[in-house]
């Protein structure tokens, strides 16, 4: 019997090795994020790991404001070139200057001793 897919654990293992992976259904070709045991909507379980292009577009943005403006930070929704949307952050730009429609690229950084997926302006 094929070992049961461990969606989050496998995704994090890939990320720790420097790869941002998505799942893709062999039958439908649809990409899936966040990782799960079946494609949402179809229930297809023929999912394989494929490397993400890392290309995306800012779909929505907010800036969480702190007392000291230097501590304020952005939170974004990125629409990936492959289709799925995810929450992330844009580094390498002032929190205030992130705009909807901006092209961004994925980066893996280390934060609190763990790998974290972020984006930078493309």
């Amino acid at each position, binding site marked *: 019997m094929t070992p049961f897919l461990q969606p*989050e654990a496998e995704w994090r293992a890939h990320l720790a090795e420097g790869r941002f992976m998505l799942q893709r259904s062999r039958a439908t070709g649809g990409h899936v994020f*966040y990782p799960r045991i079946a494609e949402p909507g179809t229930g297809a379980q023929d999912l394989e790991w494929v490397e993400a292009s890392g290309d995306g577009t800012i*779909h*929505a*943005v*907010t*800036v*969480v*404001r702190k007392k000291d403006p230097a501590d304020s*930070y952005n*939170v*974004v*929704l990125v629409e990936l070139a492959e289709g799925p*949307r*995810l*929450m*992330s*952050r844009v580094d390498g730009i002032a929190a205030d200057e992130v705009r*909807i*429609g901006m092209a961004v690229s994925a980066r893996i950084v280390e*934060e609190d001793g763990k790998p*974290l997926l972020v984006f930078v302006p493309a």
Partner: protein
Amino acid sequence: MRQGGFTRGSSAIVGAATFGIGKCPGVSAVDMAAQAALLALADADIGLGEVDALYTSAPYEALGGMELAEYLGIAPKVTDCNRTGGSAFEVYAQQAAIALEAGLIDCALIAYGSNPASNPPPGVGMTRQSPWEAPYRPLAPLSSYALAASRHMHLYGTTRAQLAEVAVAARKWAQLNPEAAVRDPLTIEDVLGARMVSDPLGARDCCLFNDGAAAVVMVRSDRARDCAKAPVHILGAAHAVTHREISSMPDLTVTGAAISGPAAFAQAGVTPDQIDLAMLYDAFTITPILFLEDLGFCPKGEGGRFVSDGRIAPGGSLAVNTNGGGLSCVHPGMYGLFLLVEATRQLRGEAGERQISGARLAVAHGNGGVLSSEATVILGRDW
């Protein structure tokens, strides 16, 4: 087959009450829910012994349905404590209408109490943060609504001043409601000048976080005729869930109200232009704008313009959130039941200074999660 699972008008709200709005210290959440329940039963002139269905959503107790049944000393045939957040109570009205008509139950009690302002909740809540969102430190749930608002502004040119109109209208209604918790004057400039929290939402774009309890009692319409007050009939109801977290919302500017609204209106056989009162869950100023669009009061993208120039304030073209809403009256964590109570009071003609003259039809629209769960109820007098 019955459209929507029950016959239009087959059941009615016959009792409604609120309790402890604002500050209610020294008691527990279940004390408050029980007090509101007894007030609503008295309002209906129905004894506790008649209640055979209990619907609640306890703020900090996952098994709150059983807790409230035990507290009241009743053994209901139907007990629910569902997990659709603030929309739970509109879902209960639908479920009760179905169970009443089916003959499964004869008297439904929907009750809720919560006092987070007086009795701050424990650090660990009943929901976990998504591992896919938490590392980016969004403010929960505020940043999720802010992201939806940012998209609406980008696509449709909605402005912060238009969002502010929602807060100002709510405050003007609150000033006519002695029960509302916050009644001091509020201007567009005050809202725009308030501390920014999560762009584009500032401190005055956010609902209150105060104490409050509410309850309603529902029976079949034949029984309703013998109750103390004029029945408010359930004409239509529908529910839609589209996601849990904002990153999975199918379209950030279209909520599940675009599904539940048309279904509830079709069942009721009425259209938005016939509605006298719209009670629209206002967790943040963006939410009534989205619901006005999705329920069909205006086209998609026009919500900001629809609320401008005081159009949803007292004296405007559509009465929205006449109790002052979650923004200025009460929001103890899950606000949905207060929508049904205010709709009932308006349709009975009990709303005092804020009464909409001749009100016959109302919509109560509940929202839960982060625009995740949407439930619409159409209510009518003399249907």
